[in-house]
């Protein structure tokens, strides 16, 4: 038979259904012969009833909620400027000109190679956004691939400098660019070049991962973001293979060539479990 004190200690998990069957039986056994604990159990259940009967909210329309929220969201650097209407392009051109003047003044500092820990890095990001937005459609993929490579260069450098948060930001930026470029990469004008570009990105991702792991205190979020990015590139490659047209002569389809394995860096052993997270 349980003691009075132990039973009282267990009444709340008992009422919440958190005790094992044999523990419940022992409590039941005590309560049957203990009016005081039985009364306390009723009080616990009364409290639980009050807690679970707090009512849910009535339906709320999403659109006005989002509009109000969007109006007060802080502005963060934007890696992509979506869908700028044609009439705004003139304004953008002026902005480019202004930035050109600014860049002339600070070109010694705000070189295109500025890294995320450089105070002038936001200028570089703005330049990139405008460059991409104003690019002709047929040059867009080339620029996107350049920017994707640049994000990976930054991520590798930041991983090497023990700045994992900045490395993660660059890897997220990489994913945004690759997401945007995915459709063009799946149906490229020049499939061979696109395939080579994807392989080069895989190799650079491996370089980021190596840099992250080299110091023995690798950041697991960097590692995860690299893995996700490799997965995204793999999906694009697979879709590209699946969507490539098949020649049909008469009633017999030409067999698709056997896909060649993607050239990848030699896999390294998994880091030990005691890796610490920054």
């Amino acid at each position, binding site marked *: 038979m349980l003691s009075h004190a132990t039973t009282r200690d267990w009444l709340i998990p008992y009422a919440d259904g958190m005790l094992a069957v044999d523990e419940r039986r022992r409590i039941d056994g005590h309560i049957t012969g203990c009016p005081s604990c039985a009364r306390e159990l009723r009080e616990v259940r009364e409290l639980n009833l*009050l807690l679970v009967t*707090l009512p849910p*909210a009535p339906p*709320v329309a*999403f659109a006005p909620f989002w509009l109000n929220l969007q109006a007060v*969201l802080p502005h963060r650097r934007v890696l992509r400027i979506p869908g700028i209407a044609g009439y705004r392009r003139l304004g953008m051109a002026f902005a480019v000109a202004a930035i050109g003047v600014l860049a002339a003044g600070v070109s010694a500092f705000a070189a295109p190679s500025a890294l995320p820990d450089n105070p002038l890095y936001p200028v570089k990001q703005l330049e990139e956004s405008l460059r991409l937005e104003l690019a002709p459609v047929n040059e867009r993929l080339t620029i996107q691939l350049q920017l994707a490579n640049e994000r990976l260069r930054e991520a590798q450098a930041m991983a090497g400098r023990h700045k994992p948060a900045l490395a993660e930001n660059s890897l997220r930026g990489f994913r945004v660019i690759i997401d945007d470029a995915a459709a063009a990469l799946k149906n490229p004008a020049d499939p061979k070049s696109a395939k080579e570009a994807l392989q080069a990105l895989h190799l650079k991702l491996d370089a980021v991962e190596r840099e992250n792991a080299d110091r023995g205190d690798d950041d697991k979020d960097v590692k995860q973001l690299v893995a996700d990015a490799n997965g995204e590139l793999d999906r694009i490659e697979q879709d590209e293979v699946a969507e490539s047209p098949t020649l049909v002569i008469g009633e017999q389809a030409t067999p698709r060539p056997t896909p060649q394995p993607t050239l990848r860096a030699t896999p390294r052993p998994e880091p030990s479990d005691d890796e610490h997270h920054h």
Partner: protein
Amino acid sequence: MAQSEEVPSTEGDAEERRLIDRSAAGDQEAFRQLVLRYHRLVINVAFRALGELALAEDVAQDVFIKVYKALPTYRHDKPFKHWLHRVAANTVTDSLRRRRPVISLDGLEQSLVSAGSDPQDVAARHDLQRAVRYAIASLPPHYRDTIALQAFGELSYDEIAKALDIPLGTVMSRLNGAKRLLRERLGDLVRPSEEANTA
């Protein structure tokens, strides 16, 4: 309406991870989709805690602003939904604590004897719910944060353990302590009616 726009959430799925990464990189359209998935959940938590829809919507906005600011530091090793629950519970209990309780517990117990559809009963039920909310808000932080996830977030013990990143035994211990204090503070309000009458 909100319901028809809801997108089913599948925790940890690739799409959600993509939305989180894009939102962290400043993509507001991706963040809009995240908010679309979870606004109902957050408004519910806030409404259970505060009891007023307009106030709940304001606090839900505060929750999403905090989330948006903190997304660049979010770690994927914890489900986004659990993290969101934690931010929501903290924000609503902070909001509750800032509001001065305007309710007297005296006399409430009598109106609890029957809580039907009579306007007086409905008003009494609302007052009682407010008393419970403020009692929760007045708890020590470690108790308050834990029971807020159960009472306002409707999370199970296991989900609370994951959201707060604490062992299940600690959740049991904290809920035990929190409910003991609540019973003390709510007094006759949590006594079954026949006992309250004879007390």
